[in-house]
């Protein structure tokens, strides 16, 4: 009897493996391609154009002054989504270091300079990946340069993923500043 029970129990690992084999797989590092993200950001767009700009020394100074720190990036690409002659908005892709490795994410900005959406395209570290959750990223919607966009102020932190939260928040601010210098009007910046 006992032997029968033991033999029966020996089947459970096989059962688990069989069940798991039916689960659709997930990727750990790459969540969306740039193309998929642009489709998400500009639904119904008739065209999406990319414009890469080499910042002039004055523009670079302006970006650094607005962010309050040195910025190495000299070239920035903004995508613009159009529906006919109607400009839907802007989007840009940034890489910011989380703890050790870069987090790649796309920031969408409406023609008025407010964040429409943020999505993580690639998260490469083994810890702190909670920042890719949509419920966390929704916090950035509607933010503009007049907002703090800082952990613990208007962005709720995630314990154990603090550096990633900080990096994404800084990246969103950076995207807005680049947008403002290239396409927008200067708004008072909150610190």
């Amino acid at each position, binding site marked *: 009897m006992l032997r029968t029970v033991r033999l029966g129990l020996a089947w459970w690992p096989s059962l688990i493996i069989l069940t798991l084999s039916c689960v659709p797989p997930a990727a*750990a590092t790459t969540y969306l391609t740039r193309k998929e993200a642009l489709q998400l950001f500009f639904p119904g767009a008739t065209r999406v154009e990319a414009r*890469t700009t080499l910042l002039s020394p004055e523009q670079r100074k302006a970006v650094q002054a607005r962010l309050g720190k040195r910025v190495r990036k000299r*070239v920035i690409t903004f995508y613009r989504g159009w529906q006919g002659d109607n400009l839907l908005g802007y989007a840009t892709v940034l890489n910011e270091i989380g703890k050790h490795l870069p987090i790649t994410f796309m920031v969408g900005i409406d023609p008025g300079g407010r964040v429409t959406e943020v999505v993580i395209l690639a998260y490469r570290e083994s810890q702190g990946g909670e920042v890719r959750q949509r419920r966390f990223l929704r916090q950035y919607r509607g933010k503009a340069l007049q907002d703090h966009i800082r952990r613990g102020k208007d962005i709720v932190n995630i314990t154990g993923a603090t550096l990633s939260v900080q990096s994404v928040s800084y990246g969103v601010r950076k995207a807005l500043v680049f947008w403002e210098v290239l396409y927008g009007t200067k708004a008072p910046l909150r610190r």
Partner: protein
Amino acid sequence: MRVMRKVFRGSVGTLLVFLLCLPPGLVATPAAAVTMEELERQIQGLQKQLEELRQEQALQAEAQQVAAIEREEALIEQITPRFSVGGYASLEFEDFDEGRTGGGSRGIFDQQRFIVNVSSIVHDRVRFYSEIEFEGVSLISSPDEGQEDETARSGELEVEQAYMDFLIADWINVRAGALLMPFGRFNLLHDDNLRDLSDRPLVARRVIPTTWTDAGVGFFGEFTPTESSLVNYEVYVTNGLTQFLSSRGLRDARPSFRTDNNNNKTVVGRMGISPWPGQEVGVSGYFGKFDDQGDHALSGVAGDWTVRVGPLELIGEYAFFDVEDVAVFSTTFPRDLQGFYAQANLHFFPPFLKDTFLGRNFDSPTFTLVGRIGGADLDFPGTPGTFPGTIGAATGRDVDEERVTVGLNYRPVEAMVFKAEFQWNETNPGPGLTPLERGDAFGIITSMALGF
């Protein structure tokens, strides 16, 4: 292309100068009027060509930009390593009075911990993470080397985590190796640079033996029942705690990674429910046999919470363990253990400090004012159980220790923290029992920790 444009501009300019230099009578003749029309047509044609060239140039520039973006993306993937090395280090200074139970320590610098993390993403769905701790280590040597008093310089070298993840889906993944036990939240987030106070709570040392690691295998995952909520879980089968309980808690019962004293596996798990980002309630459970014969159970439950309201953060944990028939083994082992802590953190940074050395050039420097109460209570065979906080009411063999801490810390950047705290302790050990940690001592602790 540039040469063509120059030639074109040059010819148009020369033509115009030539026309302007012609005598007026010559220009006014009918034959000359025809020539003028012809010239206008030619100029228009050339202008059209110029516009086409410009458009072609713009298209080429756009193609170059796209190629540059593609190169940048490829480069990021190429230069991004598939592994990372990091960790943290901490140094502590404490000064406690002796108190009536002698739990004091006078002015000690303690190079608490040096931790190295090595992690690797072997594949998008396979990853590895490890944490190796050098606690108070100044020398690592084999016993054979027997220099004078080497043991006085020795510390502890410990693998705190070393596991492999096989990712299947958000809601279910496999983890195996040396695992941090998901019992309460503190054990999972115990790093010095993450915590706002230097000392760990009593419950996280005497009841939950943080840092608590065991070899095992299990599942973890998360799912989102609604758009704003999240449920996460970890559940593992491990070797389990051993029968080396002590009158001061479960710390000595932590197992090795290579043996199981009773060949009876333990199940441990935690489920966290987060209705909104930043808020979470967790429930944990532990069940397994602890004695060498595998006849007696050690079972535990724990609850933890994290609530954030603006700059205010409320965190805490409660844990309880029941030891079945402990009197069979020893009357010096606790029959049950329980403890809790509740902590409030207020994050702030005064604007007038922004341009001082505390704020200059830092993006988000932060001060945190911290208050914590907590305690642990161990009941021994032959006495009715008491709850932590009932010091003075103990009628038999139990030991209850309580602690109140008030502290302030400063983080110039998130990875670095300077902490200072005052700590009050109170205890009431029963006959023949010793205090759990610091007895009745009062003291100060300062520390700094840096994650890298």
